[in-house]
C-alpha cells in the first residue's frame, strides 16, 4: 500500500473483487490468487467464461493459478521490477500507450528539478552511513505561482515522460531475459498481450499480493506495475486497476485503522518527535494544490484530525489545548516488526503484548526472534489458539531446540474469540466493510478482544487514578462511554468510528438549515469540521453507520448496471465508492472511454452513474479538475517525488541474498547490487549467505489447504495437507539424487528445516546472467503446535531485511542449500 498511495493517492485496491469479471486481460504476478484467494478467484473464471478474458501468470513456480492460465511465464524470484521495467520500455518504444489518458491524467508533462539525478544505480541525495536518501532533489520545478511547471508538448528533456523513457530504456528485452530468466520470446509475448489493453475499450487488471510485498524492493515492484497500468490507461476503469489482494481477511482494516507505528486512523500520520508544534504539524499535512483547479483532498486534513481527537478525548480536546495534541505520542523512529524484534533482541524491551500475532512463526530468522522473546520480562499473547510464540520457551526437539531452564520470560495466555464468535466488520481487499454476526459462543474462558483490551485499560486507568504517574492525562481523559465499560460492544465502537455531530451542523450554503442535529450520526466525511463540532474515529469510514443504521450490514445485491457494482451491498470506503478514481473512466470531456462499460459520466450539470463518482459532483469537465483528487497534483504520479524511501522511479536491485555477484544493470557498482535504502540492521549484515555456500534461490509461500499457522490446528485442513514439504525442480533433484517423497534438509545461513521433497516439473531451471538458477519452494504452514504433523518453522531460514518503505521482510527471495537425508 506504500506504493499505491504515492502513485494514485490512496493505499488500497483500486477496484474490487467482483469487478475482476469485467477485465479483458488478467495478470497474476507477485501473487497466486487461485491458491491464496480461491473464493475471490471465481471472478477470474467469470471473466474467462463470460468476457473471453485471457489470464497470464508470471511466477517462479507453475502455480495453481498457472494451472488455469492461458499463458504462463517463469520469472526468477525477486526480479519483477526488471520484468515490469522491461514492459514499460516495450510500451514506450512501441508506442503502445493510451495517449490521451496519459497526457491528461498523469504527471508526464511535469518538469523535474535539474539536480535530480540517477547515476550508477543510485539516486541523488544518498547517505551511505544512514542507508537513506535526502529526497529534496526528487521534486518538480515550481513556478512563482507555487504550481508545478509543465511542458504539454513533452519536449523538455526534464519532463517526467522523458526521464521515465530514459530510465527504462536500459531495460531491453535481452537484459530483462538475462536478469529474470524469462525466455525473451515469452517475455515479448506477455508485452504484446498487455499492449493490446492500451485501447480505450480494453482493460487489464493486475492481481498481486505478498509475492510483491515481501521483498527488499517490494513497494517498488508494485509501483512498476502501477506505472504499466497508467501507461495503458487502466486505472479508474471497469475491469482495470491495481488489485492488491490482502493476505488476511481484515488486513485492509488493520492499515485503515492505523495499526502501524507511524499511522493514526484513516492514513493520518503520527507526529515525529521534532513536531512539537501543532500548527506546523497540520500545515505540513494540509496539502495545497500543485496545479490550478485541483481538489487536493488532503487540504481537509485538519478536519479529520480534529474530529479524531474529539472522538478520543471529548471535552478534554479543545481549541485552547490544540485539540489535545500533546497527548499524541511523538515518534522517535519507526517501530515496525523488524525494529521491535531488533530492540527486543538488544534487551531494550521489557514486556510485549502479542494480539492475534504469532511472531515466532511469522517473523524472519526464527532463532533471533526466539532469543529476543527470551529477553523479555513478560509476554502476553491474546489469541484463540495455542501459538508457537506462546510456547517459544518449550523444548520441542529439533523443531524448537531451547532450554526452558534458561528462559525467565513470564508468559500470559489470554484466550480470545475468533471471528465466528463475535459480531463485527471485516474489511476485504476491495475496501468493503462487511458486517458479520456471531454464530457460536466462545469456548471456555475465551473473551472478545474488546473485552480483553477494556479489562486491561480499566485496570491501568484505576492505577493512574490511584497513583498519578508521569503523564496521566491521555489515559484518564480517554473517552470511554460504553454501556458496559468492561465490555464495549462492536456496535458502539462502529458508531464511534463513523462519527457524529457534537453540536448542530448547519449547511454552509444556507445557515438556517440544520444538516445534522447534535448527537446524530454523520452521513459522510464531507460533514467533518475542524472546530470541534464533530467527532469521528476514522474519517474514511464515515458513512458506515449513519442515522439510517448499520450500512455495513446491508445485503442488497441488485446490480442495475450489470457491472457487479452493487452499491447496496455492505459499505465501501471511501463514501461507498466501489471503483476508485472512476473519473478516469471518462475522457477529459466527461464521456466514458468505453460506452459499453459506462461507470459514470457528466450529464451536463453533474456526475452521475452506477458508482459514486470519485470527483466533486458538480466539477464541470471544462474546469479541468483531474481524477486523482487525493494527489495535490490532481494527476497520478509516474515520478513519485519524495513519497518513496528508495527512489522516485523503481529500479531493479538484487535480493539481499542473490545467486548473482552483481546487479546486471550496474555490474560495476557493488553499492547498487541491493537496494541502497532497504532496512538492514548492523548485526544482520553478516547474517546474509553467499551463493558459493548457498547456491539455490528459495521462496516461501502459502498453500490453499492452509491459512498461515492457524489451520494446522484444524483437523480437516490437516487431513488435506498433513506434513511439511518443500518443492524442487527435476534438474536439481537429479543433481542431488533426491526423489519425490525423500526426506531432505534445507539450510540457510540462519538455520535449517527438514521436510519431504516434492520433485516437480512446475519449478524450472532458469538461465540467468550466464548461470543456471535452481529454485527451492518452501510452503510456510508448519510448526510445533496443532493437529497436523509437527514440522519446522519455515522462517527459521528467512533473512532479517525489510523494504525501504514498509519494512516488510524479504520472505520471497533468499539463498539456501538442500541435501538428501
Amino acid at each position: 500500500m506504500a506504493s499505491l498511495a504515492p502513485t494514485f493517492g490512496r493505499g488500497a485496491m483500486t477496484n474490487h473483487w467482483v469487478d475482476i469479471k469485467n477485465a479483458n486481460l488478467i495478470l497474476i504476478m507477485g501473487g497466486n490468487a487461485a491458491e491464496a484467494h480461491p473464493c475471490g478467484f471465481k471472478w477470474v473464471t467469470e471473466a474467462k467464461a463470460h468476457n473471453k478474458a485471457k489470464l497470464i501468470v508470471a511466477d517462479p513456480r507453475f502455480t495453481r493459478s498457472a494451472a488455469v492460465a492461458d499463458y504462463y511465464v517463469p520469472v526468477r524470484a525477486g526480479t519483477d521490477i526488471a520484468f515490469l521495467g522491461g514492459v514499460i520500455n516495450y510500451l514506450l518504444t512501441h508506442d503502445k500507450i493510451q495517449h490521451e489518458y496519459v497526457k491528461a491524467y498523469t504527471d508526464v508533462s511535469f518538469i523535474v528539478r535539474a539536480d535530480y539525478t540517477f547515476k550508477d544505480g543510485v539516486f541523488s541525495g544518498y547517505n551511505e552511513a544512514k542507508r537513506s536518501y535526502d529526497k529534496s532533489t526528487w521534486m518538480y520545478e515550481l513556478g512563482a505561482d507555487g504550481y508545478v511547471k509543465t511542458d504539454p508538448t513533452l519536449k523538455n528533456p526534464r519532463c517526467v515522460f522523458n526521464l521515465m523513457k530514459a530510465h527504462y530504456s536500459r531495460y531491453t528485452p535481452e537484459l530483462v531475459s538475462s536478469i529474470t530468466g524469462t525466455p525473451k520470446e515469452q517475455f515479448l509475448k506477455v508485452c504484446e498481450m498487455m499492449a493490446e489493453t492500451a485501447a480505450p475499450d480494453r482493460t487489464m487488471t493486475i492481481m498481486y499480493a505478498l509475492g510483491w510485498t515481501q521483498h527488499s524492493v517490494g513497494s517498488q515492484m508494485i509501483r512498476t506495475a502501477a506505472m504499466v497500468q497508467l501507461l495503458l490507461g487502466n486505472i479508474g476503469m471497469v475491469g482495470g486497476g491495481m488489485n492488491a489482494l490482502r493476505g488476511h481477511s481484515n488486513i485492509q482494516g488493520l492499515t485503515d485503522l492505523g495499526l502501524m507505528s507511524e499511522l493514526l486512523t484513516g492514513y493520518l500520520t503520527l507526529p515525529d518527535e521534532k513536531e512539537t508544534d501543532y500548527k506546523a504539524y497540520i500545515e505540513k499535512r494540509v496539502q495545497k494544490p500543485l496545479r490550478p483547479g485541483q481538489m487536493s483532498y488532503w487540504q481537509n486534513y485538519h478536519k479529520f484530525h480534529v474530529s479524531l481527537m474529539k472522538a478520543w478525548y471529548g471535552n478534554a480536546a479543545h481549541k485552547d489545548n490544540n485539540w489535545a495534541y500533546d497527548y499524541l505520542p511523538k515518534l522517535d523512529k519507526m517501530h515496525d516488526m523488524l525494529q521491535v524484534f531488533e530492540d527486543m533482541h538488544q534487551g531494550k524491551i521489557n514486556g510485549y503484548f502479542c494480539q492475534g500475532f504469532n511472531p515466532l512463526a511469522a517473523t524472519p530468522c526464527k532463532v533471533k526472534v526466539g532469543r529476543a522473546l527470551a529477553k523479555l520480562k513478560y509476554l502476553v499473547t491474546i489469541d484463540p489458539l495455542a501459538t508457537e510464540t506462546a510456547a517459544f520457551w518449550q523444548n520441542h526437539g529439533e523443531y524448537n531446540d531451547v532450554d526452558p531452564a534458561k528462559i525467565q520470560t513470564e508468559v500470559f495466555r489470554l484466550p480470545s474469540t475468533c471471528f465466528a464468535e463475535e459480531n463485527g466488520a471485516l474489511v476485504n481487499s476491495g475496501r468493503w466493510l462487511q458486517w458479520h454476526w456471531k454464530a457460536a459462543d466462545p469456548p471456555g474462558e475465551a473473551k472478545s478482544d474488546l473485552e480483553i483490551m477494556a479489562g486491561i485499560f480499566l485496570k491501568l486507568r484505576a492505577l493512574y487514578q490511584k497513583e498519578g504517574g508521569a503523564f496521566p492525562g491521555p489515559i484518564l481523559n480517554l473517552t470511554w462511554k460504553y454501556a458496559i465499560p468492561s465490555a464495549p460492544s462492536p456496535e458502539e465502537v462502529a458508531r464511534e468510528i463513523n462519527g457524529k455531530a457534537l453540536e448542530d451542523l448547519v449547511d454552509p450554503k444556507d445557515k438556517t438549515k440544520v444538516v445534522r442535529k447534535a448527537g446524530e450520526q454523520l452521513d459522510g466525511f464531507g460533514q467533518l469540521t475542524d472546530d470541534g463540532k464533530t467527532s469521528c474515529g476514522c474519517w474514511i469510514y464515515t458513512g458506515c453507520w449513519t442515522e439510517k443504521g448499520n450500512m455495513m450490514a446491508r445485503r442488497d445485491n441488485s446490480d442495475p448496471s450489470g457491472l457487479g457494482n452493487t452499491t447496496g451491498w455492505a459499505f465501501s470506503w471511501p463514501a461507498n465508492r466501489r471503483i476508485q478514481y472512476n473519473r478516469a473512466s471518462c475522457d477529459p470531456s466527461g464521456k466514458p472511454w468505453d460506452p459499453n462499460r459506462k461507470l459514470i459520466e457528466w450529464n451536463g450539470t453533474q456526475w452521475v452513474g452506477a458508482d459514486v463518482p470519485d470527483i466533486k459532483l458538480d466539477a464541470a469537465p471544462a474546469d479541468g479538475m483531474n481524477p486523482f483528487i487525493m494527489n495535490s497534483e490532481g494527476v497520478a504520479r509516474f515520478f513519485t517525488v519524495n513519497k518513496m524511501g528508495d527512489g522516485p522511479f523503481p529500479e531493479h536491485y538484487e535480493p539481499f541474498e542473490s545467486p548473482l555477484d552483481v546487479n546486471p544493470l550496474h555490474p560495476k557498482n557493488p553499492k547498487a547490487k541491493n537496494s541502497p535504502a532497504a532496512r538492514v540492521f548492523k548485526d544482520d549484515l553478516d547474517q546474509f549467505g553467499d551463493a558459493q555456500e548457498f547456491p539455490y534461490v528459495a521462496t516461501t509461500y502459502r498453500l490453499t489447504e492452509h491459512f498461515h499457522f492457524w489451520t494446522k490446528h484444524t483437523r480437516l485442513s490437516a487431513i488435506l495437507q498433513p506434513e511439511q514439504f518443500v518443492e524442487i525442480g527435476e534438474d536439481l533433484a537429479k543433481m542431488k539424487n533426491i526423489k519425490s517423497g525423500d526426506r531432505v534438509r534445507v539450510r540457510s545461513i540462519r538455520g535449517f528445516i527438514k521436510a519431504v521433497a516434492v520433485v516437480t516439473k512446475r519449478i524450472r531451471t532458469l538461465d540467468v546472467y550466464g548461470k543456471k538458477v535452481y529454485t527451492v519452494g518452501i510452503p510456510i504452514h508448519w510448526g510445533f503446535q496443532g493437529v497436523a504433523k509437527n514440522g519446522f518453522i519455515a522462517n527459521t531460514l528467512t533473512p532479517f531485511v525489510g523494504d525501504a518503505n514498509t519494512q516488510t521482510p524479504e520472505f520471497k527471495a533468499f539463498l539456501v542449500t538442500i541435501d538428501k537425508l
Partner: protein
Amino acid sequence: MALQSLDITRRSATTTPSPGVRETQKVAKLIDISKCIGCKACQVACMEWNDLRDEIGTNHGVYDNPLDLTDKSWTVMRFSEVEVEKGKLEWLIRKDGCMHCADPGCLKACPAPGAIVQYSNGIVDFHEENCIGCGYCITGCPFNIPRISKKDSKAYKCTLCSDRVSVGMEPACVKTCPTGALVFGSKEDMIQHAEERIVDLKSRGYKNAGLYDPPGVGGTHVMYVLQHADQPQIYNDLPKDPQISLLVELWKGILKPIMSLGLGLAALTGFLHYVTVGPKETEDD
C-alpha cells in the same frame, strides 16, 4: 445411504420389481477440469456433509492428500503434470470419485440383495446395511472407486449426496466449489453447459476439448469437461473407454443364468427325486 425409496430403478441381486412410482429427472454433476484450481474445498465439503474425518496422513512427495480414496474420503483430487505439447506444461487436476454410471458395474456385480441401488435420477447408491463386504463391487467398477472399511467391512463411496439431491439441493462439493468448476443439474442441461465450455476451450487453442460421458458404461451421471478429451488417460489414468469387467458381464450375462439354471435343475432333480423315490428315510439300527 439415502432417504429415497419410491424412485428406485434397480437393486442388486434382486428379482422382484423395484419401487418406482415416483419418476425423477436424470441428474448429472459436471466437473470442468479447465476451471479447477485443486483447492480441495470439495474434499472438505464431502467430509463435513457426510460427517466423516479421514486420518491425518503423511506427504508422499505429491500434492494429493489423502493419497487415495478411502472409506472416509469419497472424493480426492489427483494432480498430474503433463506436457501434451512439448515445452507447454499443464497441471491437470482431476476430482476423482464415483462416476454414477448409467450401467453400473458395481450393482451388476453385487451379490447382496439391495446393497446397491440405482435411482431413477441416475444416482447409484450403496445401502451399507445390506452390504456383505465381499468386494465384488470393486471388481465390477471400471473406475476403481469403492473402498472397504477396515472397521466394519462395508463398501463406501460417493453418494452424489443422494440425501441432499432428494430434497432439491445440490451435492455438497458443488455448493462449496469456489470457481464453478463443479456444476449440477439435469443431465441434459449439463451436456449443454459442457458444449458451451468446449467452444470456449477450443477458442483458446484446446482443439481436442470435449465431454467425458463414456458410452461403455451407458454414459455417466458425473461427467468431465477435458481439455484433451482424446487422451483421458493423461488425467491420472482416467480410462479411455471404460467397460464393465468381462468377469462381471459373464457373471451377469451368461454365468448367472446358467448357474441359475443349474440351481433350478438341481432343485428340480431333488424334487423329482422326492416325488419318484420319496423322502429320505433313516433306517433305525
